[in-house]
């Protein structure tokens, strides 16, 4: 059985969704929890169409029923988990009746779903950014883990909590330590031993043991002058960060910006220096997918002009600081540095991933890789820790002036800001402009026709965009993507962040619709 929550898989992870659909055709059960009736819902046994941002309330209510009706996995909970009493205390404050208004779902439907969840094992829970892109993103994630531990679905094949990673190599960028708090392989920068180990390996002294800044803090630093030099590699921050007017202000305040990219983007406009990079298929390397599988990327063509591989550019800058880095190819970087320094990747070498990749942890060259974690109830911290959490509403909720909720995401035919897919023959023909998806009810109330251009306004900005009237969204909701600069949802989105992860609340802000013509 599958529980898919906050994930429009059929568009954002199309091939993953085909395997799920195959399983459903073979008889597997599917529960979808999502504010939208997206394509996967056609295949679902149950669809809980909750209100945007009410996930925790719903999950707590489901757990209430599991505990109240004694349906949870007592053996797993008592032998593999700690913190059950605290969880129980918390979720018992969430009887289904209490969350009906918050979630917009019948109490009986919640009860039935909880019973259904408890009736089939194993259950795999998949989530994507519908869970994380909230001010309560981290708590959302913990809730999903609480549910799966309570159901005893951890550490088994086809069980667990499976976050589908958005970008092809977002897993890899984390693994490689492109994060302010960890070195490659998740070794903490605050740990003096880890710091010493990397100092020795890199033949340097005096590295910082202080956790660095996250992107939103960097952006603030550009304005207050505490960040003077800003190096942006391959990201189109001007269009992907929430509240584009604010971002434009931040980037234009910067003293010195270096952009390293393959195209001019809305972000490179703010740069002082632009460095031309080799693109995908113009150099060798590896990507790490959502399943932690390290696979090869290979060269098929040469970069245009004098564009160079990214790793070469970084190496050249290091050289100008007097550091001579020995590795002179992606393979040398991986085989001689990454896999030597990060124990989880120790067994992964280029010669082992010529064909299918290997899934880390893979600790030595005989290790076959690991397809699923927490085997037999083994968690990194010994026992699975329940972390009960309370529901909190999104930072901005609809009111009289802005009565609708705007939620955002990706569509099938494009990728992010279209710097790539917008330049591929055929894809623009399939989707040539942004639309604002609105419900039949709101459309008829506001007298809006399918295809009509409307104005969408939030406290931060406004866009004119074509309305798409669709049964996919429910009353009170507007849905958009951020693929096009013109009607980009991020002119409207709210730069409110989860206090711990600093992930922005792309999934909820308040807007109103104005009709332009009569």
């Amino acid at each position, binding site marked *: 059985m599958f529980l898919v929550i906050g994930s429009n898989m059929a568009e954002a*992870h199309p*091939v993953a969704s085909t395997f799920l659909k195959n399983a459903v055709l073979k008889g597997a059960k599917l529960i979808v929890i999502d504010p939208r009736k997206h394509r996967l819902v056609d295949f679902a046994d149950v669809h809980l169409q909750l209100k945007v941002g009410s996930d925790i309330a719903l999950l707590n209510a489901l757990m209430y029923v599991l505990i109240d009706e004694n349906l949870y996995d007592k053996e797993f909970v008592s032998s593999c988990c700690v913190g059950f009493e605290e969880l129980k205390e918390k979720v018992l404050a969430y009887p289904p009746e209490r969350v009906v208004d918050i979630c917009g779902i019948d109490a009986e439907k919640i009860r039935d779903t909880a019973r259904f969840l408890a009736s089939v094992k194993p259950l795999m829970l998949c989530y994507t950014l519908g869970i994380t892109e909230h001010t309560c993103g981290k708590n959302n994630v913990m809730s999903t883990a609480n549910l799966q531990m309570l159901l005893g679905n951890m550490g088994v094949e086809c069980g667990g909590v499976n976050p589908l990673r958005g970008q092809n190599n977002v897993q*890899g960028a984390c693994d490689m330590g492109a994060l302010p708090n960890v070195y490659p392989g998740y070794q903490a920068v605050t740990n003096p031993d880890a710091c010493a180990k990397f100092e020795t390996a890199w033949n340097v002294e005096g590295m910082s043991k202080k956790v660095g800044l996250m992107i939103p803090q960097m952006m603030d630093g550009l304005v207050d002058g505490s960040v003077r030099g800003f190096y942006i*590699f391959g990201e189109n921050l001007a269009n992907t960060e929430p509240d584009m007017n604010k971002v434009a202000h931040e980037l234009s305040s910067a003293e010195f910006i270096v952009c390293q990219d393959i195209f001019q983007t809305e972000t490179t406009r703010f740069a002082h220096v632009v460095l031309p990079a080799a693109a995908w298929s113009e150099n060798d390397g*590896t990507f790490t997918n959502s399943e932690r599988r390290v696979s090869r990327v*290979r060269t098929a063509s040469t970069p245009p002009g004098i564009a160079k591989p990214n790793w070469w550019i970084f190496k050249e800058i290091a050289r100008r600081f007097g*550091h001579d880095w020995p590795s002179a190819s992606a393979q040398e970087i991986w085989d001689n540095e990454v896999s030597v320094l990060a124990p989880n990747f120790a067994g992964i070498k280029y010669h082992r991933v010529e064909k299918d990749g290997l899934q880390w942890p893979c600790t030595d060259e005989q290790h076959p890789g690991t397809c699923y974690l927490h085997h037999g109830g083994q968690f990194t911290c010994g026992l699975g820790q329940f972390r009960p959490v309370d529901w909190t509403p999104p930072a901005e909720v609809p009111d009289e002036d802005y009565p609708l909720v705007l939620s955002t995401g990706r569509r099938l035919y494009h990728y992010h800001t279209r710097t790539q897919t917008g330049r591929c*023959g055929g894809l623009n023909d399939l989707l040539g402009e942004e639309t604002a998806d609105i419900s039949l009810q709101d459309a008829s109330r506001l007298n809006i026709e399918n295809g009509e251009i409307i104005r969408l306004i939030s406290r931060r900005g406004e866009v004119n965009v074509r309305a798409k009237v669709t049964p996919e969204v429910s009353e009170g909701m507007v849905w958009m993507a951020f693929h096009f600069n013109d009607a980009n949802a991020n002119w409207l989105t709210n730069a409110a962040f989860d206090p711990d992860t600093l992930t922005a609340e792309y999934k909820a802000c308040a807007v109103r619709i104005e009709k332009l013509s009569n």
Partner: protein
Amino acid sequence: MNDETITINGNECRFEKGQTILEVAEENNIYIPTLCYLKGATPTGTCRICVVEIEGYRRLETSCTTPAEAGMVVLTESPKVVASRKETLELMLASGNHNCAIGFNRGEDWTSVQLKTQEADDAGELCPAWGDCRLQELAYHYQVDGSKYAKRDVKYPMETVNPLIVRDFSRCILCGRCVQACNEIQVNRAINFGYRGADTKIVAGADVPLKDSACVFCGECIQACPVGALVEKKARYTWRPWEVNKIRTTCPYCGVGCQLWLHEKNGRIVKVTGVEDGAPNKGRLCVKGRFGYDFIYSEDRLKTPLIKKNGQFQEASWDEALDLVANKFKEIIKQDGPDALAGVSCARSINEDSYQMQKLFRAVFKTNNIDHCART
């Protein structure tokens, strides 16, 4: 393990209950040609190419649908089997516009062959699948030339109005692989068999062009099509199999990490297909993975370093640009310390690039101000 066996061409082969004759043969490296058989989908036995002779059976049976039974004695290339395959191939070649120089009535002169090609395809070339066609391969193997029956005229015109996919019904042999790919593998349910008898056609929705149907342009049907009936619009006529190198790589878009074959000709990717049996995607792709490759050849690519002077970007050499960056960063570090620098890495680029960037910030600049959009 089961000790029961069947005999194929005189070889004793063990089998598991439920295995088909074709599966047992494949496991034992005995070749049985197939055409409509699509791995991962329910075998249908439609094309009858995989027929075999089984002792005691009156008819030839399709090996893809017939379960192995203990004691069966099977012949895969008996005279009867070969005759049947030849007949099947003759009929297929006669069923449409198979102008690859295999499927012509002998005796036709080359000029009229070319004229006919022009007329049928509006292109001066033979079938776009020439050299990459299962029917052609089998016709050659069994030395069948399509001269036995008169060619049928095909009543459905080519469908070229869609982005990315050209549907040519004149070359469709109705094997049903695309229907299975769409319904059983990708489960998009966009196409199916329509009409009846001699009018049978693969239809999308109520027989509309793909672009107006539930089709999501994953292209799985093209990959499944054994002939030239479904072809990538961008790749059409740009390549022949002997001109390309196949390079295995990983899709640059989402976190599924599908494995792709890049078909490379003269340093350019001309077409992309899924790596059958490769993990994690088992040959499947979506629209972005299959068709989203040509951005790298865009004229808009950055080709040289640029330095902004008086509000305008000016082209620069690597030394100029990198010296400027290094000097400016050194100056900032000297004045305000390393934490006055910050960097954002790229979640789309290779691991080795992210590794180098964080190493630059940590080991060289001495700050941990390095992040990427892990959260979006």
